[in-house]
């Protein structure tokens, strides 16, 4: 009977009990073994005198066995036993016949056992076998023996009953023994089943643990393999990453090297420039000193030689030439860049077919003259800065060191096909500018061209700040004003060029404010006017 497991319910244990219960019901029920009759104990050993009734109380094989023991003094042989049993079974012989047969046999006679009560029955049996008479004799004997036969019958019934009881008692005893044995076996089987179930449960537990361990092992193995693969992959990735970083660093190094070289080059150029500047300064000082020494040495002043004061004043005008040359270098921009910017004016000369007779007033470092030379146009320059004039001359350019106005005044009318002046007019007082324009108009040939370029104050950054980066600038001149002045002095203004607006910096959008902002801050920083003498 299974227990009600209550609160400590454990399905595993419960199933174990259920299985044990099932197993106990499945014990095979064996058939009872057949009972074997107990062996009859012979009591006929050693005597040599019996009465037939001593033997006639036995039946069947016990009778034959005891007859042999009593009369022949031995156990029956197999053939003898079979033969006598067969004779008894056939009804042809009765037990008296068997006893007579054994007693009268040679072996029976030689055993010398005396058997009383046998003679009469034998005689009667013999008479009974006679024809006709035998029947009467048998009938008479039968009638005579009827009381005895009835007595024998009663005894036989009792014998049979007692044998039956004995058999039942024997059977009961064996059955009891068997039942005890079976109960023992059942108990053992139950125990065995329980143990087997426990073992099975343990095996299942073990199998589950084994399976779990196997799964864990598999998982670990898979992870391990993948980690290994991952590690290899990771190492390769790191290696590639390091190589890439190395390449990047090498490239960076190259770039830094190039930058350093470039910087060194710039530094070298700057040093060279400074050296040149210093050399120029020294040369200037040397020149001044020489002039003054010469003047002192000669002492005498002639009407044709300048006085000491005149020489000193003249030299004083050039004291700042070197500084201005430096300012030019600093703020005008690199020479190549300036040359590139000035290319915008070439088409005007070419269109007018001008090949020579071009004067550049305030030629500075000579970029425009160099450009003209590269285009096959003959030009000359005039500048009052000795340092710059020396540089131009050093570059093989035709440049006169003189004040432009004084230079033009000494020239005849209509001397030039074109006169140009870049970033000069903003350095001049207004009156000087008018005079210069007048001289330009005079010295230009009819149809000749004037090109003037100056900072554009319409750009707020230029007008309010950048213009004053050069301390020698006087006033910014709006394009309308300059145009008006040029035209008022007799030239025809053909074009006003707004140069190099900073388009890429302009703020995107169509809003009016944005447009105005862009116009004020990112419009052209310079403008140029191209005019023609009628």
């Amino acid at each position, binding site marked *: 009977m299974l227990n009600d497991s*209550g609160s400590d*319910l454990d*399905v595993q244990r419960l199933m174990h009990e259920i299985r044990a219960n099932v197993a106990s019901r499945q014990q095979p029920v064996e058939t009872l073994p057949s009972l074997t009759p107990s062996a009859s104990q012979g009591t006929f050993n050693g005597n040599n005198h019996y009465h037939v009734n001593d033997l006639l109380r036995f039946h069947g094989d016990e009778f034959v066995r005891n007859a042999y023991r009593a009369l022949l003094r031995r156990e029956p042989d197999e053939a003898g036993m079979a033969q006598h049993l067969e004779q008894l079974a056939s009804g042809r012989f009765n037990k008296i016949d068997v006893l007579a047969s054994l007693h009268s046999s040679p072996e029976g006679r030689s055993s010398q056992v005396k058997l009383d009560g046998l003679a009469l029955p034998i005689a009667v049996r013999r008479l009974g076998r006679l024809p006709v008479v035998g029947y009467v004799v048998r009938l008479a004997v039968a009638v005579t023996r009827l009381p005895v036969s009835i007595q024998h019958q009663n005894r036989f019934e009792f014998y049979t009953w007692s044998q039956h009881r004995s058999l039942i008692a024997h059977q009961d005893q064996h059955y009891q023994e068997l039942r005890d044995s079976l109960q023992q076996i059942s108990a053992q089987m139950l125990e065995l089943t329980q143990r087997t179930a426990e073992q099975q449960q343990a095996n299942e537990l073990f199998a589950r643990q084994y*399976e779990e361990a196997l*799964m864990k092992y598999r998982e670990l193995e*898979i992870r391990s393999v993948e980690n290994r693969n991952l590690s290899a992959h990771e190492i390769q990735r790191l290696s590639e990453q390091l190589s890439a970083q190395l390449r990047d660093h090498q490239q960076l190094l190259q770039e830094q090297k190039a930058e350093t070289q470039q910087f060194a080059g710039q530094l070298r150029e700057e040093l060279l420039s400074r050296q040149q500047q210093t050399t120029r300064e020294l040369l200037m000082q040397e020149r001044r000193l020489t002039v003054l020494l010469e003047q002192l040495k000669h002492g005498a002043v002639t009407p044709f030689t300048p006085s000491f004061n005149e020489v000193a004043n003249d030299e004083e005008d050039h004291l700042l030439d070197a500084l201005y040359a430096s300012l030019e270098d600093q703020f005008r921009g690199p020479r190549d860049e300036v040359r590139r910017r000035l290319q915008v004016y070439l088409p005007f000369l070419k269109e007018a077919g001008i090949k020579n007779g071009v004067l550049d007033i305030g030629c500075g470092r000579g970029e425009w003259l160099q450009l003209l030379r590269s285009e096959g146009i003959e030009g000359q320059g005039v500048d009052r800065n000795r340092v710059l004039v020396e540089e131009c001359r050093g570059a093989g350019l035709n440049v006169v060191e003189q004040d432009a106005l004084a230079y033009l005044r000494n020239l005849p009318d209509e001397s030039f096909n074109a006169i140009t002046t870049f970033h000069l007019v903003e350095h001049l007082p207004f009156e000087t500018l008018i005079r210069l324009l007048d001289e330009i108009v005079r010295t230009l040939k009819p149809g000749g061209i004037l090109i003037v370029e100056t900072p554009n104050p319409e750009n707020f950054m230029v007008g309010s700040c950048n213009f004053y980066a050069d301390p020698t600038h006087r006033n910014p001149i709006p394009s309308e004003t300059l145009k008006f002045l040029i035209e008022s002095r007799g030239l025809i203004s053909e074009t006003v060029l707004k140069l190099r607006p900073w388009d890429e910096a302009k703020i995107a959008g169509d809003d009016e404010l944005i447009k105005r902002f862009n116009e004020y801050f990112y419009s052209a920083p310079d403008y140029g006017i191209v005019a023609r003498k009628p």
Partner: protein
Amino acid sequence: MFSKKIGIVTPWFGRFAGGAELLARGMSRELNKRGVHAIVFTTCSRSPYDSWWQDHYEPGVYEVEGIETRRFATGKVREPYDSVISKLSRGKSLTTQDEENFFVNGINSNQLVQALGDYVNDEYELIALPYFHGLTHSVINHYPNRISLVPCFHDEPQFYWSATERLLTNSKHIFFNSPEEKQLTIKQYGRRVGRRVVESVVTGVGVELPASNGYQAGKTEPLPDSYFVYAGRKERGKNVHLLGDWFLKYAAQAPRETRLVFIGGGDESLVPASDRFLDLGFVSEERKLDVIRNSKGVINLSKNESFSIVVMEGWLCGVPSVVSANCPVTRNHVSRCNGGLFVSNKDEFCEALKYLEEHDAARERMGANGRQYLAREFSFDVVLARYLNEL
């Protein structure tokens, strides 16, 4: 808060109540309840027991139990699939092409596969199920590593086909219904598919009682005084024939007129002709739970279960389960929570039923254990959190 939307791809969606379909229905319903927009992509076929190559519904957008459901026309080519089924039923070995035909020409929808392209993006997380049908293979293989898989694997021939390995390889995430299903997968595909199988999540399946508690038993067939329940399709694959045979033996020796009540469709010939069996056929969800609730236990002798919602429904109703000791999934469920008994032969079956009938306290205790187990492991809050954490 999970900000993406969920798209669930499943061959059938509607009234059909297969395990995978119930899973899809429960998941989409409960996600929507929790504010995560979930929609279902399915075919126009009604169920695998109808002519699944025919469109029972018009293609289009439906609302099934409040869930947005997009139906697409099924593929109509049957012959290659039928040929494979014929070979399988005759026990013949299959070629790789046969395996391919099984999945490509089974329930499928090319239109669905193409339309799904609009949803393969960062706004949606797509999940397809189960592995047994061609549609799942088609969508996952067409968009490799973009769609997650709820395989619902069983230990059956198709599980070992090469197409299954390809499916696992192309899946974005893999969600298992039980540890046993995951172990089976690791055992077969651990080495080949790699750690993504090992590290995949066992989500389980969400199981909860329907919200409507106001069920009133209407005019229904009266139930026996003492009975056990089998709820599910009646088919040999679920060992229903064995159940009939075993229960007859139990009935012959049972102390009272105990009966076995069948719920669900399937092959009615598997129910033996005896007054000890009562076949209710299809009943409403509420009626089913009511029948289970009043029973002595739920029996499921199927050996092929990846989760067994039927067993869970028994526990939901507070009754124990009797399952096959040869089904690792159900057996372990029962063992883990002490929620029933597992049997391996007819005699154990009879003894187990006898025990449950005679021990009211133990029976109620087992049912209560099962119910606690479900609340702890398989409430929708717990299960959906496992999904969303991974996605």
